[in-house]
């Protein structure tokens, strides 16, 4: 495996050469620096919007926090710029912690709305707090950054510094995208409920990414301040934030080269418009914003993925490898064969006046298959969602291996060894089958956002992929591991749901109508698969109303009717129970 990774080599060579080629045109060198600053901010937006599905109209304000921090510390306290870099970034990150901390648990539009208000407020403070910030005249005479005694004053020298940060930023973003955390982010953007049932705490992750995007903006702000060696409020206004968002969206907010391309386009366009528009309207003014606004609107309507996909089409694609090596350590399975795994007692759920589930109690024992059946509307799915903590029960409790799990968040319940599938498959269509399955290993792996960014989690990542691949082999989907999950047949989707659950190495597997929509042959295969899993030590709770499947597969049945438990016993006992017959077939006419 000693192939030269050509793509990075070519990129670095181009970056090293660019300033030499541009050196006869100092204006373009300055522009190149501004493109780099924009690219850093846009990379932050890639993480925020492209990966995590959030957005911010306040990135320039984070730049401003870092820029003013470094300006004040270097000019008034005499710090070295290399010390103010972490200080400035820290201040920007703290701003993001406050703003993000109070909005990440709310619906998606509160964060961007509050970033608008925040951007406006900070701009007013920068402009009006004259004693400290110098008001709109700003702060001047910032020291130059020096590297090994060499002062980076001319734009050519400074470009190497800017480009270094952009390359590191892009590399870290790329590492993060493919990692455990990146996968969890993409998953919670697509379907927060599914992600949470595999151990992902969406709020925590979102906050981390928001802070990370502020760090990117903070680095850009620091570079900006020491490039111009002067700060004033205008480059950190709401307009500027929108400009960065436009850059990211125009290039393609879902890809790393896209956002860098977008920064290049917008910065160049800005220079061009600055000359053109005042000439067009016959007086000077902030006319660019008309163009920005329209570009943003039109791109979102006409090409929501930006320009990069149009270029990407012509580039060679990388080939995915089948994972090899050893998998993750398995959960230690301990306990008596008939130990109570799941104990449901007096579970009740009321939706307003409607009692969907009324005092249901039953036990699931290790190594058995328990079927929960009942006609449509009997409350099976509600019961299922109560057990997995998607809903909080009105009364009653659920215990997993003796530990009460009611009131816990789904991601905490999952960590105790409970995995589920969904009645309507909750899969992530833009991810591959393997990536979908690897999400199942989330709770078994540890890599955090920082280890992932610097590529320190590769070993764990390989093990997780292998584990997922094995789960796919167990359900018979390994041959399509590298396919995208959209366009799979319903039978394959159901199997993929099970593979994802298996990848989490569960002790208890909860299946919500797993056979709905399957053909007769597929149902037989499915039953065989479940028997195999139970032989391997998994305990199964199955909700379905397919009598043939359930009666032939399960050890015991709980029958629900109108939210209440009607009967419990072996399949033969239940089938003879007159109340069950009545519920399913109607009353016997005397």
């Amino acid at each position, binding site marked *: 495996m000693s192939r030269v990774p050509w793509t990075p080599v070519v990129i670095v060579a181009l970056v090293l050469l660019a300033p030499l080629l541009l050196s006869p045109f100092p204006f373009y060198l300055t522009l190149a620096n501004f493109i780099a600053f924009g690219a850093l901010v846009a990379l932050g937006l890639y993480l925020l919007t492209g990966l995590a599905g959030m957005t911010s109209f306040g990135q320039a304000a984070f730049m401003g926090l870092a820029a003013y921090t470094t300006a004040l510390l270097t000019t008034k306290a005499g710090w070295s710029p290399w010390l103010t870099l972490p200080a400035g970034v820290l201040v920007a990150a703290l701003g993001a912690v406050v703003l993000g901390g109070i*909005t990440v648990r709310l619906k998606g539009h509160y964060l961007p709305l509050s970033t608008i208000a925040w951007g406006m*407020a900070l701009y007013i403070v920068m402009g009006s707090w004259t004693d400290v910030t110098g008001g709109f005249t700003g702060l001047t005479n910032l020291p130059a950054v020096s590297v090994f005694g060499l002062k980076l004053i001319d734009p050519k020298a400074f470009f190497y510094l800017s480009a270094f940060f952009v390359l590191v930023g892009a590399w870290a973003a790329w590492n993060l995208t493919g990692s455990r955390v990146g996968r969890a982010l993409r998953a919670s953007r697509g379907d927060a409920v599914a992600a949470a049932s595999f151990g992902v705490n969406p709020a925590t992750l979102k906050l981390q990414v928001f802070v990370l995007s502020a760090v990117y903006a903070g680095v850009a702000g620091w570079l900006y301040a020491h490039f111009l060696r002067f700060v004033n409020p205008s480059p950190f206004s709401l307009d500027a934030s929108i400009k960065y968002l436009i850059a990211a969206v125009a290039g393609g907010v879902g890809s790393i080269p896209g956002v860098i391309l977008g920064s290049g386009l917008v910065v160049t366009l800005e220079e061009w418009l600055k000359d053109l528009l005042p000439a067009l309207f016959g007086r000077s003014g902030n006319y660019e914003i008309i163009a920005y606004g329209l570009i*943003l609107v039109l791109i979102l309507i006409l090409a929501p993925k930006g320009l990069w996909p149009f270029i990407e089409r012509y580039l060679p694609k990388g080939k995915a490898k089948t994972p090899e090596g050893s998998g993750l350590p398995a959960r230690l399975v301990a306990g008596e064969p008939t130990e109570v795994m799941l104990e449901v007692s007096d579970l009740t759920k009321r939706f307003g006046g409607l009692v969907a589930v009324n005092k249901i109690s039953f036990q699931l024992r290790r190594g058995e298959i328990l079927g929960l059946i009942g006609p449509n509307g009997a409350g099976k799915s509600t019961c299922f969602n109560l057990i997995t903590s998607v809903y909080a029960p009105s009364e009653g409790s659920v215990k997993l291996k003796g530990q009460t799990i009611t009131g816990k968040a789904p991601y905490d319940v999952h960590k105790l060894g409970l995995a589920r599938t969904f009645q309507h498959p909750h899969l992530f269509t833009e991810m591959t089958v393997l990536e979908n399955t690897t999400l199942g290993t989330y709770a078994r792996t540890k890599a955090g956002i920082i280890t992932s960014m610097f590529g320190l989690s590769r070993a764990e990542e390989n093990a997780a992929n292998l584990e997922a691949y094995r789960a796919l082999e167990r359900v018979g989907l390994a041959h399509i591991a590298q396919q995208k999950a959209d366009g799979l047949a319903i039978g394959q989707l159901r199997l993929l749901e099970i593979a994802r659950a298996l990848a989490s190495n569960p002790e208890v597997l909860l299946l919500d109508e797993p056979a709905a929509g399957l053909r007769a042959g597929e149902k037989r295969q499915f039953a065989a698969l479940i028997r195999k899993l139970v032989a391997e030590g998994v305990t199964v709770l199955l909700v379905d109303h397919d009598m043939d499947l359930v009666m032939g597969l399960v050890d015991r049945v709980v029958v629900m009717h109108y939210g209440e438990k009607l009967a419990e016993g072996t399949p033969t006992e239940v089938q003879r129970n007159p109340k069950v017959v009545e519920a399913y077939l109607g009353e016997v006419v005397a």
Partner: protein
Amino acid sequence: MDWTVVPFLAADAVQSGTIYALLALSLVLVFAVTRVILVPLGELLVFAPLTYVFFLPGEVSGLELHGQIPGTAWLSAGLLLVWAVLDRADLRRAVGLFLAAVLVVGLAWVGARGVPLWLGWILAVLVVLPIGPASYRLFFQPAKNASVLTYLIIAVGLHFAYQGLGLVFFGPEQYRLPSILSGQTNLGTVPVNNQAFLVYGFAILTMLGLFLFFTRSLNGKALRACAVNRFGARLLGISPAQAGYVAFGIATLIVAVSGMLLAPLISPAYFQGFLFGLKGFVAGILGGLISYPLAVVGALVVGAFEQWAGYVSSPFKDALVFALLLPVLLWRSLRSHEIGEEE
């Protein structure tokens, strides 16, 4: 604090709070029905009175405009024309839209030639009114089923475009407009502009009107149905697109009239709309962008807080108002338990 200023601050607080309330109501209406957070509402608020400037006789406005047609009329007509082209499959509607576009320019031409004050006032509202529903058709409809987030980004883009166009149409100046009711009335020791009473009257009328519309009329009930469940509404034969036009239309009407009534008190300029709009948001967010009564309460809180902030530290007044959002969101966040299920 000097307590003698409190009544004066309170009077100003009620005045600006009422405007924020009208904006917040419009925002909540549009958001509930279409999931669009209509950031450019503030621009529509100042567009109407700035258009009115062009319809004033020269001796009232103090400007020499030589019968020039305001840019907003061209914008309004242009949007209607594009709408007509987009809906060309429905010939009757397309022709109707085309005629509406011609009518808008015609009205603006008549207005600019010199009309009585009251007629100019009405013409200004009529010229600006189509911008709202047409924006919905042109910029939000094509992205239907987009996330709230995509709509929000589009809305922000539109705000920028309209604000920039405002600068092109009206320049950076502030304009003085004639009051409908001149003079002041003393409430105790506090003088209140008579014009402000028109704003209060309109606000009360709007709230009453919205209440009756939503509870009594079939159209209003259809809008509420769309707000609760778009899919379900569609099954019952309610067109969400139609509901969207109605919501944008009502919201534009409310803010345009609010802007006309407010204008003599503030001397409007193109850039002022956004700050009004943003404070309307802070108010709307107090009510979670869902509750109309809470939005009104929020607006009065914002108005009061703003006056207090302006008294304590005038340069940071707006910054403090926006900072008010933080405790509000914190309070909402502590009450929320769901795992962010997106619409």
